[in-house]
């Protein structure tokens, strides 16, 4: 099936280009958009593996929500690029050393497992016609990985509390409506009736 290979290589190429763009583009907003492209291509490759649910979740959660958060952070930090570049030459040897070490570790690890040989990654066998990736995820998630699922819920709870604790600031003089107070308001709080004698019209 040549179209499968064509689609795979096309999306892989776009994904690699996007990933390179993330770290080379100067404007951080453009870098975030490159990351969106990378996520999108990864999602297409997952779709080729018939992992429909994961592919759609990658789009919805990462492209739709997490990247918006990244953009907010980029815009909130007010990044000035020039000070970040200070000392680039001074730290360059250390940086190259660390990068070379990490690359060497990865290469040795991958080589020793024979992962560069042809045929190390065979095409996955096609699933039967009635196979549903979403159902498979559900069956595994709620039985074998139940503990991980519940722990994920607790982590989300911690994330809620942390986000509120870190960012919620009630500012003085904020105009906030209190509906129950609005409903319970009495006439005396709004209008004051004053008794006074009628006055004759001037000059008559």
């Amino acid at each position, binding site marked *: 099936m040549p179209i499968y290979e064509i689609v795979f290589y096309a999306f892989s190429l776009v994904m690699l280009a996007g990933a390179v763009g993330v770290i080379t583009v100067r404007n951080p907003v453009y870098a975030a958009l490159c990351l969106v492209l990378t996520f999108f291509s990864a999602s297409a490759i997952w779709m080729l593996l018939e992992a429909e649910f994961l592919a759609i979740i990658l789009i919805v959660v990462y492209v739709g929500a997490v990247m918006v958060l990244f953009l907010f952070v980029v815009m909130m930090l007010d990044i000035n690029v020039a000070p970040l570049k200070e000392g680039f030459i001074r730290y360059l040897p250390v940086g190259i050393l660390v990068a070379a070490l990490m690359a060497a570790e990865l290469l040795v690890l991958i080589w020793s497992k024979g992962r560069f040989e042809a045929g190390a990654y065979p095409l996955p066998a096609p699933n039967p016609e009635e196979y549903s990736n979403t159902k498979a995820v559900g069956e595994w998630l709620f039985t074998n990985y139940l503990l991980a699922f519940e722990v994920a819920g607790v982590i*989300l*709870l911690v994330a809620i509390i942390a986000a509120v604790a870190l960012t919620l600031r009630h500012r003085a003089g904020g105009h906030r409506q209190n509906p129950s107070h609005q409903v319970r308001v009495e006439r005396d709080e709004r209008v004051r009736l004053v008794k006074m004698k009628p006055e004759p019209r001037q000059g008559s």
Partner: protein
Amino acid sequence: MLAEYFPVLVFLAISVVLGAILIATGGILGALLGHSQPNSEKSSPYECGFEAFEDTRSKFDVRYYLVAILFIIFDLEIAFFIPWALVLDKLGVFGLAAMTIFVLELIIGFFFVWKKGALEWE
């Protein structure tokens, strides 16, 4: 299964080609036909005659971040419901109990957010 997604691929290819054509024709026609007289005054910021008050890239308020992160958390929670709903008839009461615990954890968070007033915009 993949054959069902072929129309999506066709749409994707058409939009990529269309975008490339539009950008290419715009760039080529613009370079051929347009006048280009760059001037430093043309690219300077113009704000109704007076000097610009501040930089265009002003800081975002942190409150938008709170709204976004709460959205992500509850978005993720909903995402977990989809595979659960598909296999609920197989899982039975066990699956219902598992999801109840999960939802209770997030309802605690929801009430926390609500009572803190984080859902209100002041």
